[in-house]
């Protein structure tokens, strides 16, 4: 059986600011079509690692490949992935439809009724079809995140990065977002990388994960989160998945 094709390959990555090294020798792969989560405690560098993966920061050493191609991660100038930022990062002066129209207007010749049809379809897909003409200030936090996902989908990228999608959401909104992540992954075959520390989300959506640890300055565990929870011998990983405080308190 052929080994699955890697969508993202991270090789021996070292990141940090000034003289401070945040992580070193970080190596992992993300296969096509899977939901991959980056886990770890607060302040361990999960969101920072995401900034390197999406090219907002340059690593000190090591390489990040998307579909086997190094930086810049674009195809004929078009970004090869979509990103959902923690707050949704919608432009507050534009309606949801106008927010979604931005990447289309920048990177495609699609205009007019076709563009409106595509925008409406993406909003329908995330359950916001009725809110196309609303401003971000007029909708809830969970809806902003779903609108952010719709915007990330506008260029039909097959790779999405989500930074703490469930943060600050009520359990029902968080569960709806998890379902949306599963839909995007299973039905649209999109590879999704999620930074999170929400355990219910992790066990529901994640196929594979890496666990980062501040003290080790890197990855302390990789694999299926359910197996790691049940079988990991690493104290921090065990504590992380079982929400106990013995090893965590030492960090």
């Amino acid at each position, binding site marked *: 059986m052929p080994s699955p094709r890697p969508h993202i390959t991270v090789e021996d990555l070292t990141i940090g600011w000034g003289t401070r090294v945040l992580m070193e020798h970080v190596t992992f792969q993300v296969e096509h079509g899977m939901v991959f989560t980056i886990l770890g405690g607060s302040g361990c560098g999960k969101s920072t690692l995401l900034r390197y993966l999406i090219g907002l920061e340059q690593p000190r050493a090591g390489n990040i490949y998307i579909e086997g191609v190094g930086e810049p991660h674009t195809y004929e100038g078009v970004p090869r992935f979509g990103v959902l930022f923690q707050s949704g990062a919608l*432009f507050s002066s534009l309606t949801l439809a106008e927010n979604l129209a931005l990447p289309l207007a920048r990177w495609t010749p*699609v205009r007019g009724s*076709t563009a409106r049809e595509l925008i409406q379809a993406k*909003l329908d897909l995330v359950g916001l*079809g009725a809110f196309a003409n609303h401003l971000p*200030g007029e909708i809830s936090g969970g809806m902003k995140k779903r609108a952010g996902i719709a915007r990330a989908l506008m260029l*039909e990228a097959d790779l999405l990065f989500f930074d703490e999608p469930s943060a600050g959401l009520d359990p029902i909104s968080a569960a709806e977002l998890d379902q949306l992540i599963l839909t995007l992954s299973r039905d*649209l075959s999109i590879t999704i990388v999620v930074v999170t520390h929400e355990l219910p989300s992790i066990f529901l959506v994640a196929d594979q994960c890496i666990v980062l640890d501040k003290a080790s300055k890197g990855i302390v565990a990789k694999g299926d989160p359910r197996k790691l929870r049940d079988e990991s011998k690493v104290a921090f990983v065990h504590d992380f998945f079982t929400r106990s405080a013995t090893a965590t308190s030492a960090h």
Partner: protein
Amino acid sequence: MSVAIRADRKGEYARIIPTGPFDLAHATPAAQAVKNVEALLTGCGSVDLDVAQLDRIDGAGAVLLARLLDRLETGGRRATVVEGSNPEVARLIARYRERRAELPVAHTGVMSPLARIGAVAADLPGKVNKALDFIGRFAVALAKATATPNSVDWRSLPRLIQEIGADGLVVTSAANLLIGIIVAFLGVSQLGPLGAISYVPGLVVVAHLRELGPLVTAMVVAGRSGAGLASEIATMKVSEEIDALRSMGFDPVRWLVVPRCLALVGTLPLLTWIGDLLALVGGLVVTTAFTRMTARAYLQATAEAITPNHLITGLVKTPFLAFAIGLIACGQGLLTEGGAAAVGSRTTSAVVLAIFSVIVISAVFTFFFALMGI
């Protein structure tokens, strides 16, 4: 292979077969192909979509085909996807068909110009009421600040004085120097032909010390520091820092507005004095450079022209101008609601209102002094 949709019709039945790439890069020709084939399907009772010959398809292509099927079904026709060897494409199209908006799309109403004028007029009493309420709250806060010093952020005062005073000194000084030069030039050009050059120092003193010095300095401070204060507080408001202050029992007016207004009241007169001095220097340079008047004669005439009345009428208004700038900038900042765009619009409003208020207050003082014969 180019984007197209072939239609094979047999009576009331049609089989439509899209070919080529149905993706975002080809969305425009794909939309045209959908439109063309729709026209050929008039009178059909049953339509099958055969996706076996598609080169590739993504979400954009799936949306266009899904909407075509939706429209056919809305017109009373049976529309189905023939999966064939491409079940993934059928699933993708199905995904976009089942996720239609259930609620009607709300449209934001666009006001006519007349309705907008009416709305602005209707808002005006409320706005005046809010402004007066804010001034009242500030007066109470100022009184309570002395009674409970812990409720005011006094530690920010040195930083504010530095930012408003020291950091703004170069700009206000340069503006005043240039105004002094301009007034002197006007005096030399207008009074020179009449042989009245000796009146130029007096003109500079009266024009600048009484009116232009406080006005120009306050306008520059309103533009520079007013914008800074308004955007700082507006950003705190949208990032919920103001709510956090309230939740901890702080009065934002006392904690934030009082030190900012006091910093302005302390620095604006100083900036005005320094500005007045530089304007007199500007007048001296121009007059001695372009006329036969000596520096000594200019200084002597200037000293004679400076009277307590001119000094007091100029400086007495600066604390009022400072309060106006501070209250407007902080008030606009506290009124901010929404996101980043609201910070920008509130900052603009603060600067415009502060500059306009500075001009109005100066005019009121001038009128009052004229009435009083000062």
